[in-house]
């Protein structure tokens, strides 16, 4: 035992102070333990006073920064762009680095963290980020200084302007101050491209309302939503539409539950929430919409100018082409008409994008005919930023090909990947004299650049956004730039000034309040992330037009000047600006109003492209069009519908697969006249027959180590085509599908179809639920109609069913209520959990072995009968009688006094018994020690340990946040209980959830969110029959099928199963059941293939 050196005790001053007591109970137990077990180990010095780690060092600040208290988080209100939108969030920083993104509680919306913000956080720390400017010489890239890069850009801009060539910009959707600067810089040659399929909507509003904008919708007021494939719960409308839908779906708000009907060939994550799914063939949406519209106009006796839109409506033809029943069209129209003024029709993004302009026109017209304008649809808080279509990108490329573009600024957009461009694009780009890549990441597009000037991302830069009119969001840097990057605004300002650019703003349009005085005062003020331009330039004099031009010295000044001019006004600006910075936004949204002018252009439905099998591409619910594909979280979090990870896969219906003789997960070849891809196939019920669906977003050839080579690129199957409004045509192409291999080695985290009769998901009749809401029920849970096994409440009350008493919780028992009616399956909770809890990303190979590390998973369960999906987030249920606790031999997991099911990693030896015994399979084992590649490690949450190989881990209800909140509350009172509002959305998942599906709170408090939810008629516990007494309870999903026919006649068809089965109108209630039975048979036939 010589290796174990003992401490030199004699020099320890604490020795004398040690209390000398007689044989205490503890010592007695110790003595007993010695007698009964091996004592050799402790004698070996295992508990000797020694540290096995080397001495660590403390490096204090030389000068302590004011805002930082070491060890205490600092929050910065900032704004993250989410495609064609933006959202205010708080960046949580520790010791000067962003560690997480949390909801901004001061925002005038329900709390939410968009998953784009979380993915942007990981993108911020991506090892693939460009670390500095680079210049390309032939095929080789070399590093340059910023000064040299900016000079090169300035020279090129000057040269181009002298030669009469244009300086063009191609970037993602931008709003706010940057828009004006870009406009000035490029002389109006800026093209903003987003692959969200909404370009047609802007074209339609131009045609119908005379102005190019995206109309505003208020889903919260809707009682009936008819969507033509709009992904309004993932990417179509940003967080706002998710929040509004959740409110409309909430039975406690105005005693109604919105009924959501979907007309689309595929469900997708958004469509999976639909109550009725009309499986319209791709390309038939416009005809169906016309037919619905004509019927609505007749029912509501609409006689406005938009009536002309419906001129070509033909119900029978539409039904035939769509492959749906004519009664279904009748049913949609009836429901819209019944909910006149409270319905909304949504045109459909990419999924509905066979002729998006036409579809949007018809949808607008239906909304007008249903008297929705000014109520759920209309003008006012609209997106007025530039909405460019594929035609605009085409024009830009044509200009490049013609040699008329001198400098092309290629911002954070990837047209080469996201658009079906052919090989000529390289030729076109080669004609541009200087292409400058401004993205912080290398990708397929900026591989063509001559100069890479990596700009700072949203966590490092100033900026502002205006996602809807009047909602001004401010962005402030949360940390100093990670690498040698500069603000895009600064790059433009500096080079523009050097090239002697001027504001384009017309004096006539200028508003008052020239900003020059304000600028003068701020020019010298240095912010913490200010980038001081090195290219010398005289500060330009204030433009008499009111345009900011290139006057402000820095981008921060520019943003401030713009806010002073347009948003806050000069009065008391400094104070109001600081307030806005603190809140993160300035809300001056106009009310929703009816559009002023309405025209009624005629609409022609697109012709059918032919072919028995049609391709449908759709935006991936997590990765979108592929911007975040290189972020490991976006690949690791399972696809909501199929459970697939780290791959692309073709999705077909069981019927299609059977007719083509394709087995589930076989390797298939999908070809169109544009191209061919090979990938796996997933057979599931969320796809209409005769359709093959493929998600966008994967199949990168470059663009980072995590995205490259993962999956296939769906746009390679498309051709660049535009519709009458210049919008991209995504859908309608014919495709061929054939099996080429037995197995595609797809990796999926779930393969099940439904819950095998285990009642993990339950439903409550929607009409009844809407009447009573979640008001306390005398018999909680009765509304679901399931009592399995039947439990006699008298026995429960008498305690006869339980061997042991429930643990006592004097002050807190933390609990959660998960509303499956609100959950839309978006996966934001899962990503937020990865960000908060330092979850390792294990990758495809290990997920294939079944070793994903997600603490919260979103289960997708199909209804056994109808085409309905329920999403169910499952995390550790923190059971009162936890099966895991009693089996741990070393007490590494036990029940805390706060009712949490604690997991002490350091005590865990890794028997994995707890996990075997967890009926929820919520525990995750560290099969290996995972290393966070630099600089991902900078994002690690310092309040949460990083687990090493051999220990179990699981959801902790974000105990570190509980600890922090408790500690903060203790400053007020040592003994009082924390109020409910401090807890309600405390865990990362609840914080991120845009639909407020997760409510956290103290179950001891009778008025807390989860306690109230427990009293609801639709409350149930997952696997509650195991008597685990979970702290998580679920709320059943509202089900429109279970209700009796209250609409009479035709409406009953919808109760059967989404009207897909013909003449349901002739059936009564029983007929609905008959239908369901028939469908079950089909579902089973499909399941045999789809499941395993």
């Amino acid at each position, binding site marked *: 035992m010589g290796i174990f050196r003992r401490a030199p005790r004699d020099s320890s001053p604490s020795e004398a102070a040690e209390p000398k007591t007689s044989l205490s*109970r*503890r010592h*007695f*137990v110790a003595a*007993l*333990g010695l*007698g*009964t077990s091996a004592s050799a180990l402790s004698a070996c010095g295992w508990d000797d006073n020694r540290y096995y780690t080397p001495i660590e060092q403390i490096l204090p600040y030389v000068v302590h920064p004011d805002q930082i208290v070491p060890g205490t988080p600092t929050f910065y209100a900032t704004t993250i762009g989410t495609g064609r939108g933006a959202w205010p969030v708080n960046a949580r920083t520790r010791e000067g680095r962003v560690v997480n993104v949390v909801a901004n509680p001061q925002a005038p919306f329900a709390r939410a963290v968009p998953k784009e913000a979380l993915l942007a956080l990981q993108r911020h720390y991506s090892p693939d980020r460009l670390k500095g400017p680079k210049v390309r010489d032939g095929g080789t890239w070399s590093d340059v200084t910023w000064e040299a890069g900016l000079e090169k850009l300035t020279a090129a801009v000057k040269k181009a302007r002298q030669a009469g060539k244009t300086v063009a910009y191609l970037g993602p959707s931008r709003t706010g101050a940057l828009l004006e600067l870009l406009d000035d810089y490029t002389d109006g040659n800026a093209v903003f491209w987003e692959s969200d399929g909404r370009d047609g909507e802007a074209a339609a509003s131009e045609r119908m309302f005379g102005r190019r904008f995206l109309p505003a919708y208020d889903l919260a007021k809707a009682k009936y939503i008819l969507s033509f494939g709009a992904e309004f719960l993932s990417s179509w409308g940003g967080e706002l539409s998710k929040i509004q839908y959740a409110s409309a779906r909430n039975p406690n708000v105005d005693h109604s539950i919105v009924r959501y009907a979907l007309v689309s060939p595929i469900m997708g994550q958004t469509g999976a929430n639909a109550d009725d799914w009309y499986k319209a063939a791709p390309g038939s949406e416009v005809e169906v919409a016309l037919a619905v519209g004509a019927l609505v106009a007749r029912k509501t006796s609409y006689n406005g100018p938009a009536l002309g839109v419906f001129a070509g409506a033909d119900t029978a033809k539409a039904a035939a082409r769509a492959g749906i029943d004519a009664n279904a069209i009748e049913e949609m129209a009836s429901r819209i008409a019944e909910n006149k003024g409270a319905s909304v029709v949504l045109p459909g993004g990419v999924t509905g994008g066979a002729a998006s302009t036409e579809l949007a026109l018809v949808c607008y017209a239906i909304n007008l005919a249903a008297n929705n304008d000014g109520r759920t649809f209309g003008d006012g808080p609209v997106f007025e930023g530039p909405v460019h279509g594929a035609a605009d990108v085409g024009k830009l490329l044509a200009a490049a090909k013609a040699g008329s573009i001198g400098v092309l600024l290629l911002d954070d957009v990837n047209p080469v990947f996201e658009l079906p461009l052919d090989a000529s694009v390289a030729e076109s780009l080669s004609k541009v004299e200087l292409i400058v890549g401004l993205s912080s990441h290398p990708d397929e597009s900026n591989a063509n650049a001559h100069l890479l000037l990596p700009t700072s991302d949203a966590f490092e830069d100033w900026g502002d956004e205006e996602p809807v009119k009047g909602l001004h969001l401010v962005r402030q840097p949360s940390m100093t730039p990670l690498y040698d990057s500069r603000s895009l605004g600064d790059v433009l300002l500096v080079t523009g000034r050097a090239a002697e650019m001027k504001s384009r703003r017309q004096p006539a349009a200028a508003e008052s309040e020239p900003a020059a005085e304000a600028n003068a005062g701020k020019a010298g003020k240095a912010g913490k992330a200010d980038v001081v331009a090195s290219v010398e330039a005289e500060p330009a004099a204030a433009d008499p037009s009111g345009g900011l031009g290139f006057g402000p010295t820095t981008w921060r000044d520019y943003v401030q000047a713009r806010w002073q001019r347009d948003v806050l006004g000069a009065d008391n600006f400094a104070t109001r600006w600081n307030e806005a910075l603190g809140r993160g936004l300035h809300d001056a949204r106009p009310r929703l109003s009816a559009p002023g002018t309405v025209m009624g252009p005629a609409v022609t439905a697109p012709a059918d492209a032919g072919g028995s099998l049609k391709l449908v591409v759709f935006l991936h619910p997590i990765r979108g069009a592929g911007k975040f594909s290189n972020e490991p979280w976006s690949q690791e979090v399972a696809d909501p519908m199929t459970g697939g990870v780290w791959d692309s896969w073709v999705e077909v219906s069981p019927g299609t697969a059977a007719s083509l003789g394709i087995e589930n997960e076989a390797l298939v070849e999908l070809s169109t006249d544009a191209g061919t891809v090979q990938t796996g196939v997933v057979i599931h019920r969320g796809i209409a027959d005769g359709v093959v669906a493929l998600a966008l977003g994967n199949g990168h050839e470059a663009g980072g180590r995590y995205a490259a080579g993962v999956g296939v690129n769906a746009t390679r199957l498309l051709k660049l085509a535009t519709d009458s409004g210049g919008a991209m045509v995504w859908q309608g192409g014919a495709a061929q599908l054939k099996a080429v291999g037995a197995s595609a080695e797809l990796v999926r985290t779930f393969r099940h179809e439904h819950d095998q009769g285990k009642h993990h998901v339950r439903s409550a009749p929607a009409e009844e639920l809407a009447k009573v809401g979640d008001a306390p029920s005398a018999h909680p849970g009765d509304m679901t109609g399931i009592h399995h096994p039947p439990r006699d409440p008298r026995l429960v009350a008498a305690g006869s069913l339980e061997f*042991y*008493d*429930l*643990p006592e919780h004097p002050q807190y028992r933390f609990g959660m209520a998960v509303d499956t009616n609100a959950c839309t399956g978006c996966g934001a909770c899962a990503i937020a959990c990865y960000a908060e809890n330092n979850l390792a990303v294990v990758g495809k190979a290990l997920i294939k072995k079944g070793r994903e590390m997600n603490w919260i998973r979103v289960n997708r369960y199909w209804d056994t009968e109808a085409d309905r999906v329920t999403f169910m987030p499952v995390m550790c249920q923190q059971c*009162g*009688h*936890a*099966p*895991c*606790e*009693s*089996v*741990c031999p070393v*007490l590494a*997991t*036990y*029940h*805390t*006094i706060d009712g949490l099911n604690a997991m002490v990693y350091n005590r865990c030896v890794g028997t994995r018994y707890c996990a075997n015994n967890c009926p929820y399979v919520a525990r995750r084992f560290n099969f290996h020690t995972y290393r966070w590649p630099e600089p991902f490690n900078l994002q690690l949450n310092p309040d949460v340990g990083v687990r090493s190989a051999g220990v179990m881990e699981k959801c902790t209800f974000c105990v570190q946040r509980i600890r922090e909140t408790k500690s903060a509350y203790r400053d007020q009172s040592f003994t009082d209980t924390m109020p409910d509002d401090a807890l309600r959305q405390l865990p990362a998942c609840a914080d991120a959830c845009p639909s407020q599906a997760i409510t956290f709170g103290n179950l001891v408090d009778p008025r807390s969110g989860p306690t109230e939810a427990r009293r609801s008629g639709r409350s149930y516990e997952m696997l509650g029959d195991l008597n685990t*007494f979970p702290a998580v309870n679920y709320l059943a999903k509202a089900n429109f099928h279970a209700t009796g026919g209250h609409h009479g006649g035709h409406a009953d068809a919808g109760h059967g199963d989404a009207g897909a089965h013909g003449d349901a109108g002739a059936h009564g209630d029983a007929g609905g059941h008959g239908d369901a039975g028939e469908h079950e048979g089909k579902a089973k036939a499909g399941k045999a293939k789809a499941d395993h």
Partner: protein
Amino acid sequence: MSASLPAETLRIKAVYGHLDCLLTAIERLKHSGFQGFQVTSPLPRHEIEEALYEGRPSPVRWWTLTGAVTGIVSGFGITSLTAAAWPMANPGGKPVVSLPTFAVIMFECTILFGGLCTFIGMIVHTGLPAWGIDKALQDPRFSDDKFGLVFTGANPGDRERIVAILQATGAVEVTTGDATVYEVPNA
């Protein structure tokens, strides 16, 4: 052992090939009032034990009982006291002292302590290890097919009478020897 033996004592060793002869010898010796002889056998024969101890049970059983009782008590002790040391960590909602779960540990401790004490008792009572046992007993034939009857501390005066009995009962071989120097035959 041999060192403490008085010089005037005598060793007498008889080797028997047959069990009935041995038993007769034991009977006759006992009848004649001779005690303090040991009998070795290559196998346990209950007749020998009967003849020598007349059915008195071995005291090893008290060791077993003591061990078992200690086991059950300490089993209960360590389980309940250690559970009481962390009363708030009641895994799975079970009570702090949960007899059904502790019963298993108590049972195992009972068996373990009972077994170990039996072993100790056996060691104590048999006098094992017996490496220094009297050389007269160290005869390899006794583990093979012969029985032995050995006086290690006989009174020299009884020598003739004992030898006579032994020879009369059919001993294959009878040797006598000095207390201090005793050669082991056939070693």
